[in-house]
């Protein structure tokens, strides 16, 4: 069947349970645009998420879906890619899910250079549970739990990813459609772990970090920035008054997890096509006779 690769192809018919004006709508659109431009057939695409408003995104996107547990999208995605490297595996989840509950998996999948795209819709709040601080919430913001204001140091995903040796580290502001779509595309095309932190507004729960706020507090990184310079990337990541958007760091050619495993040493077909080598097994058992 010939597919018509448009943004619409990737849209699912269900009603979207997001608030009108929610930033997740925009990112959903941009992701679909990127998929369409790359002409990725839905049957080669797996969308993985945890739980949260951002994590509903795979529900609304045509492709395979693994809508797992809150905080656990990354280990799931890594395993899916390792079980079938032919699939394009994209994680779309929230800041709480990815950097809060899922913090350890964020570190560990970067260590592995898991060959996945990690889009984090970072609205600096727990949306679905109605407005508690997330790890990225800014100091001083008041919520019904943080009654005198957030006291934690905000989590800086880009700085940490760069410190961890991640091979593709970017931030987008979906108000900037062109840059956003372009970066999602590059992230998908990147071999290795790709982080795309996305500044989206939560209109219902985060009155501070509105679309306008993000617009006013971001700027596009210019061409003079050397994306292969880790030190410079770190400096960019530390800019927090006015946040840079774009690719901060990129490293090509680092081997990815699945290709370094024994399963793909001599053949590339996905695991579901395989069965045990009974001859070898018999030989292994028999070898024990002489010990």
């Amino acid at each position, binding site marked *: 069947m010939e597919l018509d690769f448009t943004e619409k192809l990737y849209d*699912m018919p*269900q009603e979207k*349970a997001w608030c009108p004006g929610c930033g997740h709508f925009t990112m959903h659109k941009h992701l679909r645009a990127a998929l369409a431009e790359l002409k990725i057939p839905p*049957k080669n695409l*797996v969308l*993985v998420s945890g*739980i949260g408003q951002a994590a*509903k995104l795979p*529900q609304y996107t*045509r*492709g*395979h*879906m693994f*809508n*797992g*547990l809150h905080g*656990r999208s990354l*280990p*799931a*995605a*890594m*395993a*899916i890619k*390792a*079980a*079938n490297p032919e*699939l394009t595996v994209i994680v779309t989840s929230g800041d709480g899910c990815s950097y809060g509950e899922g913090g*350890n*998996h964020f*570190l*560990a999948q970067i*260590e*592995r250079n898991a060959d996945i795209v990690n889009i984090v819709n970072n609205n600096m709040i727990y949306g679905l549970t109605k407005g508690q601080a997330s790890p990225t919430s800014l100091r001083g913001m008041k919520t019904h739990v943080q009654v005198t204001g957030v006291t934690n140091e905000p989590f800086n995903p880009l700085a940490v990813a760069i410190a961890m040796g991640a091979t593709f580290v970017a931030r987008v502001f979906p108000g900037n459609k062109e840059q956003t779509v372009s970066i999602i595309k590059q992230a998908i095309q990147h071999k290795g772990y790709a982080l795309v932190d996305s500044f989206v507004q939560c209109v219902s729960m985060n009155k501070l970090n509105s679309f306008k706020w993000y617009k006013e507090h971001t700027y596009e990184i210019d061409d003079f920035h050397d994306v292969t310079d880790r030190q410079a990337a770190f400096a960019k990541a530390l800019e927090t008054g006015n946040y840079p958007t774009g690719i901060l760091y990129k490293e090509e050619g680092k081997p990815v*997890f*699945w290709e370094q*495993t*024994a*399963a793909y*040493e*001599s*053949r590339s077909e*996905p*695991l*579901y*096509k*395989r*069965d*045990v*080598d*009974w001859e*070898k*097994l*018999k030989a*292994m*058992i*028999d070898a*024990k*006779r*002489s*010990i």
Partner: protein
Amino acid sequence: MIDISIVISGAAGQGVQTVEQLLVGILKMSGFNVFATKEYESRVRGGTNSTELRISTTRVAAFVNRIDILVPFSKAAIKHVKPRLSEKTVILADESLLGEEDAANYSHLIKLPLQKTAIEVGKKIYSNVVSVGAITGLFGADPEIGKKFLRQRFQTKGETIITQNQEAFDKGYVMGKELKDQGMVDFTIEPTEGVESEILFNGNQAVALGAIAGGCNFISAYPMSPSTGVLIYLAQHSEEFEIVIDQAEDEIAAINKTVAAWYAGARAIASTSGGGFALMGEGLSLAGIMESPLVIHIAQRPGPATGLPTRTAQEDLNLALYGGHGEFNRVIFAPGTIQQAFYLTQKAFNLADEFQVPIFVLTDQDFVDGYYNIPSLDISQLSNKKHIVETADDYKRYLLTKNGISPRGVPGYGEGLVRADSDEHDEYGHITEDMEYLRPAMTEKRVFKRRKLLEAVAESPSLVPDAEYRTLVLCWGSNYHVVKEGIAMAEKQGVSMLHFHQVYPLPKIIAETIQKAEKIILIENNATGQFGKVLTLELGINIPREMQFLRYSGKPWSVEEIVKIIQKEAL
């Protein structure tokens, strides 16, 4: 039946394990039935550990308290096993270990110049091999077998090391032979035809091997005693069998990766111990709602929390049974023999695939570390049936079918989209809030329909030795051999064992088998009689507290203890 128990004891790092492995290998290849079991502290050097080897004319595979020959590597070692020593115990020790006073304390004390001989040969470190030689000599086995084995083992270490080891062995052999010939000790035992070509695997290896036979090509696990052996064994054969090995960042990752790997078409296993599994509850529950196949190996150890990390227990049956929030089905295997560990683990993968539920393989330290010769593992009758369907365009992952099984597709195979969801969902896998129809229908599928199917294919327990009994001893998992041997040794009429290698769900019909007994005895390795409660809930069997023999010290049952129970309690 001739049956000799040899205990080697010393500090971690002193080579107890090497001696064990060498002796087991040499004696098995000499045609003796062997069984080895160890107990050790949670440390890498020091402390006091011990291994028990049994050499026998019949197959034995259980811990006996009795020590026929003790080979201590330190003074502390003798103290360590003192309660197990009898007048008949022969203590075979280096001369440096034993003082004047010991001669008075122990009747059969044999001092040997193990170290001195080792130093003569080349290095003090060879004294272990001298003692291996001595024991081989005691049994009058063919020394050439020992030397061949040493060559094989030290193959990569160069010719000098090999020949020095062989020389050390020879010198020890002569000592042992002399003791035997002089009538100082008498452990005459005849080899058994065919044993020399039998095979040896420990419990962890049998589980790992069963996994390989089940088509396992993915493991994500975080190291944890006593389960780590499964990860290691699979890793070591990962290149041969093309297995993805992921040493996970934590157990939560491990279980989520395992579920996701099945989703994408792998056959995956999670392997851990109780404390690691206690972190996997949410992931288990994910498998429950996703209707994902899942195989989980839990090697139990005494808790709560860190507890006694290298000891044994059967304390985590409840957790395997009730772990994970919400309601869904599961199957729990608890192998009692090496063969069961292999075949059940292989079966676990196919059962998981067919019924899309978590299948547990529940072992314990006693089981995973023990090994003994078995004729073979016959794989000629095995096969793996994949229950994956090629998806059509309108594929529904959670199709409501009559029997309660929704055909499972995997991404990339067929035209359909495979949408797996941790939320309550419709047939496509899309989030729903429908409480009128979908929620009850999906729950009935997950809870009631599955349960019926799983009950129908449940494994029946083993009735040993036979179907005529007045007293029935119930046990499960690692207690197979010890109860079986205990019954044989007790020499009481009308006593049988009913051993459960599947502990949940139970085939209802078994209630009859149990009720036929006039007296029921329950043996478990926990404080609360966890399996007894399963029997109550599943079969309506109530065993009075006095007939529940529960142990919670961290040690396995010994044959002698079982004998005592049976002699006292059996009709």
